């Protein structure tokens, strides 16, 4: 790790102001991606703006028909929150499947979605549930927020403050882990709200998280795993690596989607 200057932000405004004063600064949320990368000298931001003490960025609240999770809320807090469990139990379950206990006690929802790792779990939930990403500047639909591998619609001086999840009748996330890293090799989130079904896939897409619209159409007609029989996904749009070829990932997407539907 190279030397850097550590700034402890006291508020969102303070964090944004500090960023404005140090253009090459990075926000530090849970640090579960950034810090290992810095330790390997693959990233070398000269300034880190630590959001860990910003109180307004922490907490979980049900506001009418939506669940609001503030950006610096740890995965462990989501996984064990009674509010989340009763509002959308599948979301608490998803948070409990992220990484290991150490990661879940440090990693945050805001950090996860702002990083948009193609194997991260939360982006699939955000897409499937039709979440709204709230920043210090605006409100963005999840689909407009995630723009590709490790990239988002976030602009300079913009910071995720919370994620709002509308309630779905059914929601289930099924994850097939990479045997080594335990990240999602394929993760499929299925949500049903009234007559609308959304299927989001993480871990596999060569351009990051995506919606599997063909599956959505079938499931909208008939929310049953058999509706997905014979449906396949083009491996050409997927990632392949030593752990799983594109073809294998394409196959796994089908399997995980069916299992998610069956368990939803």
């Amino acid at each position, binding site marked *: 790790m*190279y030397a850097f200057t550590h700034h402890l932000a006291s508020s969102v405004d303070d964090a944004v102001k500090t960023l404005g004063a140090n253009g090459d600064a990075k926000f530090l949320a849970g640090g579960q991606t950034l810090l290992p990368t810095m330790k*390997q000298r693959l990233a070398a931001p000269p300034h880190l703006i630590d959001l860990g003490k910003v109180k307004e960025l922490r907490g979980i609240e049900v506001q009418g028909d939506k669940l609001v999770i503030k950006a610096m809320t740890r995965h462990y807090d989501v996984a064990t929150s009674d509010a989340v469990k009763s509002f959308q139990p599948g979301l608490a379950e998803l948070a409990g499947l992220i990484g290991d206990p150490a990661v879940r006690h440090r990693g945050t929802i805001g950090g996860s979605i702002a990083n948009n790792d193609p194997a991260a779990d939360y982006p699939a939930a955000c897409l499937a549930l039709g979440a709204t990403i709230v920043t210090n500047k605006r409100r963005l639909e999840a689909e407009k927020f995630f723009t590709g591998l490790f990239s988002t619609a976030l602009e300079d001086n913009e910071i995720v403050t919370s994620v709002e999840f509308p309630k779905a009748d059914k929601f289930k996330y099924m994850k*097939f882990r990479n045997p*080594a890293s335990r990240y999602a090799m394929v993760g499929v989130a299925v949500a049903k709200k009234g007559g609308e079904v959304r299927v989001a896939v993480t871990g596999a897409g060569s351009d990051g998280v995506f919606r599997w619209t063909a599956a959505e159409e079938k499931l909208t007609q008939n929310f049953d795993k058999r509706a997905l029989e014979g449906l396949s996904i083009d491996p050409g749009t997927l990632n392949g690596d*030593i*752990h*799983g*070829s594109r073809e*294998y990932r394409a*196959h796994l997407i089908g399997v995980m989607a069916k299992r998610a539907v069956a368990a939803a």
Partner: protein
Amino acid sequence: MGATGIGAAIPRKEDHRFITGKGRYVDDINRPGQAYAYFLRSPHAHAKINRIDTSAAQNAPGVVEVYTGDDIAADKVGGLICGWLIHSKDGSPMNAGPHPALAQGKVRYVGDHVAVVIADTLAQARDAAEKIEVDYEVLPAVIDLANAQSGAQIHDVAPNNVVYDWHLGDKAATDKAFASAKHVTKLQLVNNRLVPNPMEPRAAVGEYEEGTDSLVLYTTSQNPHVARLVLSAFIGLAPEHKFRVIAPDVGGGFGSKIFIYAEETICVWAARKIRRPVKWNCDRTEAFLCDAHGRDHVTHAELATDAEGKITGLRVSTKANLGAYLSTFASSVPTYLYVPLLSGQYNIPAIYGEVMALYTNTAPVDAYRGAGRPEATFVIERIVEMAARELNMDPAEFRRKNFVTQFPHQTPVIMCYDTGDYDASLKKAQEIHDIAGFASRKAKSESQGKLRGLGYSAYIEACGIAPSAAVGSLGAGVGLWESAEVRVNPIGTVEILTGSHSHGQGHETTFAQLVSDRLGIPIDNVSIVHGDTDKVQMGMGTYGSRSGAVGMSAIFKALDKIEVKAKKVAAHVLEASEGDIEFKDGKFAVKGTDKNADWGTIALQAYIAHKFNGQELEPGLKESAFWDPTNFTFPAGVHICELEVDPATGSTTIEKWTAVDDFGNLINPMIVEGQVHGGIAQGVGQALLEGAIYNEDGQLITASFMDYCMPRAHDVPSYQVGMTTTPCPSNPLGIKGCGEAGAIASPPAVINALTNALGHENLQMPATPERVWKAAQGARLRMAAE
């Protein structure tokens, strides 16, 4: 057996220290004025070095010195050695290329040592290393075993990259057996390359003591005396009497810490040059790149059987990848630690094995838990299983039919099995496993859309390595005995100095149990001293499951001498003749009387020396012994793996594992069982999860735990472990060795179970979910049709 003696399953004495964070590892050692070393490593698999410019690094903040291969050449520092000479079929000695501690003119794998920066802090050393400019001329990399012979030449001394082309066995007799065989089973297999990954990475602190002109090296070694011998006699850093090597607490080795590497060599050499202690601590990525890897064979094997299903011959041809340089014992692993084990537990009249060892532009490959024996066991236990299936015989019955039943048994490939009862282990394993219930368990799995399979592995290994004369005749550069010294203190407490080294094996407990048993004293009154060449005179260290059979036997022999001496003292104290003294349960008694003295009294009397004539009997109570056994030991057993496959995803779940081992007599059954557990976990890792992968440019793709899959707790089942016992006749304790058995036995059990579940043999290790999914396609169709 006493409460703490031989056979007692007592908790480990050392655990309190370790689990409360009070261990003292090399990285815990910091010397006054210490500087830090950082190695600049090659980013290329194969390249000429045209020029290295260290001037900017030299002038960077905090830098003490920057050294390259030119500096060690100027100081005439010897190269790293390979201590086992193998001769090719044509009688020529192996082609051992030079192995300088810092590259000279060429780099040969990604991670090869190009330069070292020594600075006041590690961060400064690392920053400065980025300022070194190296002009590389990149050469084509040789990665694949299949193309190694036609690839670019890596060492001038090794045309076609051949280290040796070696063989063992009677080729003519074996060919004859095949010519008259009723059936021949053929197997093509890959034994995947593994990265050892001990929990504690390697580390070293080198120190020069100017007043005495001597060197001290703290290092993560399984054999500090061998390290001193090599660094002193071959690399030439200092004579042995001016060189102290200390291996304190060491957090696992699995073979990778046997070897003498570049980094510790450089630390202790540089410490003298800069007159400051030099510390190096390996990070995990460096460990992936540069610790000696294990396995990496491609093998074709054939098994001949007659009309009755008896094995008549075995023919094995292997290509072994030894990496870019010959590591310390690399050459012995795919030769004498491999082919002599190919007979397995079976009576095979003719065996012929040939091994082509090749250089590639990858990390050196050397001994890793099992070293050669897992490779041999994988060959014989896979092909025996396949032969049984092809002959429509029950795999257990086929094995039973071919078991060696008479001992001693001379195999056609060197080994003479001293004792064993293979059928007893098989029978017991089948009982424990509930083989009879397999059919209904399988039916239940299938009703849930899962495949279920069961696989045997009836392994044998040769360990307790071994008689010095025997290994010498096979090319070893060292003798393989062990030493021990028993120091009895005046109040009767005992210090055992041993040449064995504990890095997870629990010697502080088991060795003390032996002493407690022999002398009838509490285990807490015994301490085990190891890992310091200034305290222990000489030793050969711990590997090849040798510390029990060889190391403890040396202690046993020294204790014999202690008992003889103590009886002489007791005779004087009790005023009786020496022949009338009996020693039992810590008491010396005069036969037929009630006169006695306890252990502590006699120990004290030995030192105050008032009761005997010091000219006739030396004062004190201290004895030493060297033990050189008469044979290898031959642990053997049967493991049964039962697993379930989800054909939709290719996920494999091990549902049941039975291990029945014959390790001879046990000192601490709990520690033995723990060794079995750990060994199986490593074997399951090899079978299902682990594999080092280089890309075609020689970059290690699996250079971190993000891509190299180590087994986790959920990957292994709760084992059912049983024992059978045939005491080993070649050491006084009757013990065989248990440290590697699990890793040797388990891979073929897993693959035999998987291929049983899938209904075909086409599956290589590691059997990752994707490989199993592909292999399950046929099985899935069959299930759908049923």
